[in-house]
């Protein structure tokens, strides 16, 4: 049985190699080399850096939120496990900084009130058209799932934020269009959003451009996948459980199959007895005629 299994795996490996070959060529071609960074949330054990997420929220709030919405996040998410983990009081205070339209009240009027934990992040524009109109015809995308909506994910966003360069001489750009090394087509309508010291971190972290880009990217990855940490934790447990189960099932299978093999052995012995009987019948005759 083990021999069968060996052949099986050998074939699988051949198939994987054969099938991966064209795809690896494919991905090599497509990949632009993003700036390398170590993300704490990558890998099987990846978790978010709370302080970085909290700083990332600050960057979002002070820099990005002027144009970009994050409509699928709620203020309560800021205090939930696996995220920036602000305390409930802090999250409440953050929510209260915003004015939310509510209503209609008993008189049929819409009214403004301060934000609550259950509110979604307030949108900077009343609608998509308004956001396009105020941004020179370009839609500042909603950032809720941005990290999952771009090839390259976190690396792409991080590189893009740091990828602004002087326009090369052979490239001509209209007013309000900027040159970015990592933007597909190199033309981007967002002006360079971050620079050294554009925010002031209260925890004493030095607000370099790289640090700011890293913090806000982490924040966006969390915004796109708020359950990433529990996903990793559960995944690890599940895989360990499966490995143990697979070993046990394999051993049981071998045990069960050994019953059949011993049965086959009995049958072989029967055959042997039969042959013995046939041979006995031929006894005495010339062995050369025996077949």
């Amino acid at each position, binding site marked *: 049985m083990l021999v069968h299994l060996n052949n099986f795996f050998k074939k699988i490996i051949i198939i994987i190699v054969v099938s991966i070959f064209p795809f690896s060529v494919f991905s090599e071609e497509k990949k632009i080399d993003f700036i390398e960074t170590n993300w704490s949330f990558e890998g099987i054990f990846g978790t978010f850096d709370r302080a970085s997420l909290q700083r990332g929220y600050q960057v979002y709030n002070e820099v990005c939120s002027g144009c970009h919405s994050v409509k699928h996040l709620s203020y309560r998410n800021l205090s939930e496990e696996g995220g920036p983990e602000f305390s409930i009081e802090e999250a409440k205070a953050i929510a209260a900084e915003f004015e939310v339209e509510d209503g209609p009240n008993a008189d049929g009027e819409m009214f403004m009130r301060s934000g609550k934990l259950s509110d979604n992040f307030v949108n900077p524009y009343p609608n998509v058209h308004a956001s396009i109109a105020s941004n020179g015809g370009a839609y500042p995308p909603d950032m809720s799932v941005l990290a999952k*909506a771009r090839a390259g994910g976190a690396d792409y966003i991080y590189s893009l934020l740091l990828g602004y360069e002087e326009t090369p001489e052979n490239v001509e750009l209209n007013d309000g269009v900027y040159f970015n090394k990592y933007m597909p087509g190199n033309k981007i309508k967002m002006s360079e959003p971050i620079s050294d010291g554009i925010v002031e971190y209260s925890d004493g972290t030095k607000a370099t451009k790289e640090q700011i880009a890293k913090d806000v990217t982490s924040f966006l990855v969390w915004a796109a996948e708020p*359950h990433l940490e529990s996903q990793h934790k559960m995944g690890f447990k599940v895989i360990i459980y499966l490995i143990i189960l*697979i070993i046990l*099932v394999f051993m049981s299978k071998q045990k069960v199959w050994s019953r*059949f093999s011993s049965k086959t052995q009995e049958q072989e012995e029967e055959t042997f007895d039969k042959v013995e009987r046939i*041979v006995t019948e031929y006894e005495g005759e010339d*062995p050369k005629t025996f077949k």
Partner: protein
Amino acid sequence: MSETKYIPKSKLAQWFDSRLPLLTLSHHLTEYPTPKNLNYWWTFGGILTFCLITQIVTGLVLAMHYVAHVDYAFESIEHIMRDVNYGWLIRYVHANGASMFFLAVYIHIFRSLYYGSYKSPREVIWIIGLIIYILMMATAFMGYVLPWGQMSFWGATVITNLFSAIPLIGESITTWLWGGYSVDNPTLNRFYSLHYLLPFLTFGLVILHIWALHVPGNNNPTGIDIKKNSNETMPFHPYMVMKDLFALLLFVAVFLWFVFFAPNVLGHPDNYIEANPMVTPAHIVPEWYLLPFYAILRAIPSKLGGVIFMFSAIFILMLLPWLDTSKIRSAVFRPIYRKLFWVLVFTVILLGYLGAKPPDGIYLILSRLGTAYYFIHFLILLPLLGRYEKTDPLPMSISDPVLDKPGVLDKVKKAALKYEGENVGSFK
């Protein structure tokens, strides 16, 4: 099809079984004789049943939270991902489950091709299997539309537009499919309805598929007929159940690795951008499992031609039992077919790769060559091969390799030695 007649032990059971033979059925299913030489490629049937049930169960839960409306579909998916308890897990299992389902079905189909499982007397099993495969593709395609992302919308637009290539009635068919004059809310609604319906049709066909299998019994790696109820078979339970379970768990481990650690690698990032009829994505690509057919579609210069070739690529498989004229089932004993099989595997993978590339330059040329070879394989090479291929000798029975084992032969020789004393050298 166990030949022994089953009679339940207790009176009550006999009373019930004579009215509805469920006990006979379960006896049949546990005692069902399977060839003892099945290898691990045969475990994918069970794996596929598991995949279908997983998709139905997770889909059922997702349907409780999903909203099939163009304004809310994308949002409701995010609601599932964020606010429904373990919604992310259920959705990722369902989304990756589709890919795993296709991975398993491709292995299952290619196993059948290699060992000639589609040949007489198993043609009906093969054709039902292909209908299941077609239903799977339809279901998966419509399921991919439901999140209403950019690829959902534009994929739906491209695929439904194919029908407009049909002369005279094409335009009307497309309008009828859409429920309007473009892919819009009515399209989303009917796709949702059909996406819920088709898996149950598939389930029914799976029962027929297994039923049809249990009439002639399993094929096996040697491709030769086996004697039922002999030492060449073993009862399905516990032997095959244990083996299938072991293989299934290995498969599930791979499956869940994707779910927990790389849930989005098999999808396209653009599908996390909400559908926008005003913005066309740079490249519209279907999910990976449809790419070979997409490559064939685009390899043909005319739209109608492309559609015809694409559908023919699937339907040609229905004729396979008659196109393959060789009497020998298993590629193990067909030296030339064995090589052609691997060339076909390579061609299909190559077409899949080309389906993800823009259709110009070298990619287009390769797509055309690949498409041509695909049809040549089935329409020309296989019919000719059956006539001219020199096949290897078949063993008398699947036990033959077992009897070849030195142990058995030694025993016979020893027996002879015992009785003959001398002249053993001449003994064969």
